[in-house]
């Protein structure tokens, strides 16, 4: 039986600080085996280190991770100091559709907790990183429609900011179609050079650190990601 202690709200560290939630959707399918997943692990550790070096970001940013490789594994939101990612291993297919849906769900639940505790928030960031093509959905099926509609609805209603990053082998056509609601020249679909996750996560920590120092609703400028923007007409 749950006790009184279990009825307490879940821990949101630094509740007096406005929150900047970031959801990382990371591809750990079999094609990421070997060096790519090693570099990914290194990059994620680097992200934690960079955020902890920023006094404001370490209190403001909350990270959750959803990995997809064979199955989908969600890791709940926490502050950088409590972010202790396991060493991800690669294997299995690429259930990207389910991972996106679970990521959006985690964001919605966290937002409810912020609301219940009167905590203000910045628009959550959703960052998808993949080296392949989704294996649990394809254009025209129900999951595809659900994912595309949700991403569009969430972005149109300013509930999230979605970014996608592909490494060699990624299906950029699919990524473009997932974010086809974004204007073509501003579409946040990028191709990383090789597997430079370190540069990607450095850019990510620098960018969300800028967000974490901004005022609610303020327009801010961040550097372009260390990657080539992909513009495909879909």
């Amino acid at each position, binding site marked *: 039986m749950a006790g*009184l202690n279990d009825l307490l709200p879940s821990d949101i560290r630094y*509740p007096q600080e406005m929150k900047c939630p970031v959801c990382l959707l990371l591809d750990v399918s079999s094609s990421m085996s070997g060096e790519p997943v090693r570099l990914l692990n290194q990059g994620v550790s680097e992200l934690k280190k960079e955020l902890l070096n920023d006094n404001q970001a370490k209190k403001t940013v909350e990270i959750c991770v959803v990995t997809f490789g064979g199955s989908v594994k969600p890791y709940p939101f926490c502050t950088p100091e409590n972010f202790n990612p396991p060493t991800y291993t690669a294997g299995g297919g690429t259930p990207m559709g389910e991972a996106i849906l679970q990521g959006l769900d985690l964001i919605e639940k966290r937002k409810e907790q912020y609301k219940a505790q009167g905590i203000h928030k910045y628009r959550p960031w959703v960052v998808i990183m993949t080296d392949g093509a989704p294996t649990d959905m394809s254009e025209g099926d129900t999951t595809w429609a659900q994912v595309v509609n949700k991403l569009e609805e969430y972005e149109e209603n300013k509930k999230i900011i979605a970014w996608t990053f592909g490494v060699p082998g990624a299906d950029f056509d699919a990524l473009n179609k997932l974010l086809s609601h974004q204007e073509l020249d501003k579409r946040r679909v990028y191709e990383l050079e090789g597997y430079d996750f370190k540069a990607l996560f450095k850019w990510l920590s620098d960018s969300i650190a800028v967000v974490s120092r901004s005022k609610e609703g303020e327009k801010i400028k961040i550097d372009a990601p260390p990657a080539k923007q992909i513009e495909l007409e879909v």
Partner: protein
Amino acid sequence: MITAYAMASGRNHLKDNACCQDNIDIRILKDSLVFAIADGAGSAASSLHGSELAVKTFCESLSKSTSLFPDNTCLIAAFDDARKALEKEANKRCCSIKDLHTTLFGGIYLKGNLKCAGIGDSMCFVVEKDGEVLIPVQPTKGEFINETIFITSEYWKDFLKVSDLIENPKSLVACSDGLLNIIYSTVFENGIWKLIPHKDVIENMMDYIAKNHVVIDINKEIADMLRGDRANDLNNDDKALVVAIFNETNRE
């Protein structure tokens, strides 16, 4: 009527082996409840004694004058008596009354009606028949967010707030500000700090206490919860909590 209460040192005080400076007194009479919560100021040398004396004197005074209820005079007289006792104690100790700095919040429930009053940043949340959560007395903040007004302050009477009469409440939770982020939050809107009770936490807590008070030591469980990691992660200040469920048969 079911009542439960506990207080616990916050993580900051536990680390220094310091006592909890929050205090509670509660008197259950034939058909009434008198309760008080006080939060001693951490910066005052003898605030622990101040908060203890304040709740004890308030409850003793109010318990003797329940016949005056629901007139405000019984509540105001109880605050007056607490203030006089604190002045006397300061004289006895040859110290300033400021060395006993404490807030004071208290109330009385009698024959289905409730009234409470407070000075400082302790507070209570009252669950009404329709499930709505009422804040009968808004806590008083000082000039800055981490300041408040004490019954030991110079112009304390100017800040004393007494609630309206609340008829047939379902339950109440009274607490010190150590329960911030646990059962309530604050937001700054239009230049004022607003309290937001965590309705789901309060409702779940009431349900749990109503269902389990006979089979477990509910006061111990509340104390364990208040001194636990989860509560201290949310707020590391001292904590005091009083819960009263007035008519459990009304509960869904």
